[in-house]
């Protein structure tokens, strides 16, 4: 790890790197005197590096919930001492409970919503509507191997009234099979989806919050809705097992969870990250189209231990049913 007392290695997502630097790392540096040495890259490759290489000099990792849970199971992180996190009590109850079950603490949340063109398909308010025969070949959904994959399966299970926790996803896949005629394509990259929407090949897309802006810029007619019963999916902070910079790491985590920072990065013009700190108050454009407020309150959580133990077989099944 970074030996100097005045710096910290943070491994984080590769999106919006200028904003991460200017709106998180720089203010933190000003406040604490600790310089952040960032690694920007995609979630899986960073996690692979951390998992396989205990000597990687990363101190703090910002990862998706799924990988954070695998990290815990594979003993990649230190157990967090929640008492060292002053802001922990300000977090939403759901976030707190996730933190207690894992070695990580949530700092942001996303959920699954529906982007659609009301002029072409009318208003959509529930997931159930996606199964309507009117939407034949009109829907794009993310692949199972993406962040939203498990959530979509869970939603399908809910629609079929066969929650995946009960039957391991059997009923959910039945329901997905029924959805298949409506699926134009599964996508893995946001721009891919933008192209489909722009060229009018799909009118409805199941997406994660973070793609909302990109799509709305592509087509002004689009509307976004986060129906009831959506699933939340946290982004989490963890301290790596071999970090020798624990003190600075906690300072960073505290800063990241602070009302001040959470408010800042939740703004539309920066990272647009939905906050998990309950004290954060958003208004205007920054408050809409994201897992904040009502949508967050009604969202459900997935048990990623359960999800991860099934993920491999689910992907297989998905490949065989949807990618067929």
């Amino acid at each position: 790890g970074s030996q100097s007392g005045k710096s910290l290695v943070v491994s984080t997502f590769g999106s919006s790197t200028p904003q991460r630097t200017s709106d998180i790392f720089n203010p933190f540096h000003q406040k604490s005197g600790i310089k952040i040495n960032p690694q920007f890259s995609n979630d899986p490759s960073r996690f692979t590096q951390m998992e396989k290489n205990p000597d990687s000099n990363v101190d703090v990792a910002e990862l998706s919930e799924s990988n954070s849970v695998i990290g815990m199971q594979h003993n990649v992180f230190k157990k967090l001492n929640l008492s060292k996190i002053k802001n922990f009590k300000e977090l939403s109850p759901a976030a707190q409970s996730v933190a207690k079950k894992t070695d990580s603490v949530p700092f942001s949340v996303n959920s699954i919503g529906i982007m659609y063109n009301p002029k072409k398909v009318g208003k959509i308010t529930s997931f159930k509507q996606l199964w309507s025969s009117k939407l034949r070949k009109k829907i794009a959904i993310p692949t199972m191997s993406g962040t939203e994959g498990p959530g979509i399966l869970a939603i399908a299970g809910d629609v079929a009234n066969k929650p995946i926790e009960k039957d391991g996803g059997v009923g959910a896949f039945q329901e997905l099979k029924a959805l298949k005629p409506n699926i134009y394509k599964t996508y893995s990259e946001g721009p891919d989806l933008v192209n489909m929407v722009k060229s009018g090949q799909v009118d409805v897309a199941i997406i994660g919050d973070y793609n909302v802006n990109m799509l709305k810029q592509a087509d002004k007619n689009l509307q976004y809705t986060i129906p009831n019963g959506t699933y939340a999916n946290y982004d989490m902070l963890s301290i790596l097992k071999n970090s020798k910079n624990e003190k600075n790491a906690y300072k960073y985590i505290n800063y990241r969870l602070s009302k001040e920072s959470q408010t800042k990065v939740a703004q539309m013009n920066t990272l647009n990250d939905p906050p998990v700190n309950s004290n954060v108050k958003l208004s205007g454009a920054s408050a809409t189209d994201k897992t904040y407020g009502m949508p967050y309150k009604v969202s459900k959580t997935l048990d990623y231990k359960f999800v991860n133990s099934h993920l491999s077989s689910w992907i297989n099944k998905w490949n065989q049913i949807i990618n067929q």
Partner: protein
Amino acid sequence: MHSHKVLNVIGTVAILFLVFPLIFIIITSFGTGSTIEFPIKGFTFNWYLHILDQPDMISGLETSLLVSFIASAFGLLIGIPAVYAMFRGGIHHTAWFQMLFLSPTFLPEVVIGFSLYQGLIITLHWPMMISLIVGYFLLGFPFVIRLVGAGLNMMDPHMEEAAWISGCSRLKGFFKIVLPNIKSSIAAAFIFSFINSFNSIPVTLFLSGPGFNMLPTSILNYMQENYDPTISAISVILMLITTLIMMLINHFMGLNRLLK
């Protein structure tokens, strides 16, 4: 006289096919829409300026150029002597050597990235940057073997013999006679190993860490939440850089001899 109608048709169509998407990219880089679109509605240079607001794309460009350059040079340094020995050294079983030297071609880039991460970084504790150079080296090495090998094969062996008889040692003869006659193959090998490593995403994903950015991953990162003409603009910048490199090569060794 040496070309023929059929050849002209195929050649022209193929070149159009190759140019088509490029023109498309160039045009979209000037579009005013906030996503890449075609045809464009207005004309602007803003997306080029926008690149300047992406510090890690710029630092990524610098590091990528540097690392690819070092890796390609390293490939030439190791590859040229090996090729010379294989084609001019009277060594037996050159087929086996070739098989080994060309083996990186058969490895999926993800596997190269991952296996080097395991082998060099985890097991041997090599620094990330060195491992990345190694990864890029593997992506370019087969080009050196093939292109320089082809260049050597095309050279009249009597020429080198004539140099020896003129009092030139094998080493000197290599530099004075062989090298000038294969320099275009060397230039070609360099360009292609450079390009192939410069563009590699999977290898870069595994072998980059805190402290440095590489251009391909920066672009990939950017595209996760943005789909605006900035990425067309950066592609156009890369084309301009290529043109610049080719002009330099043209200046120093004559492009018409390149690939000749």
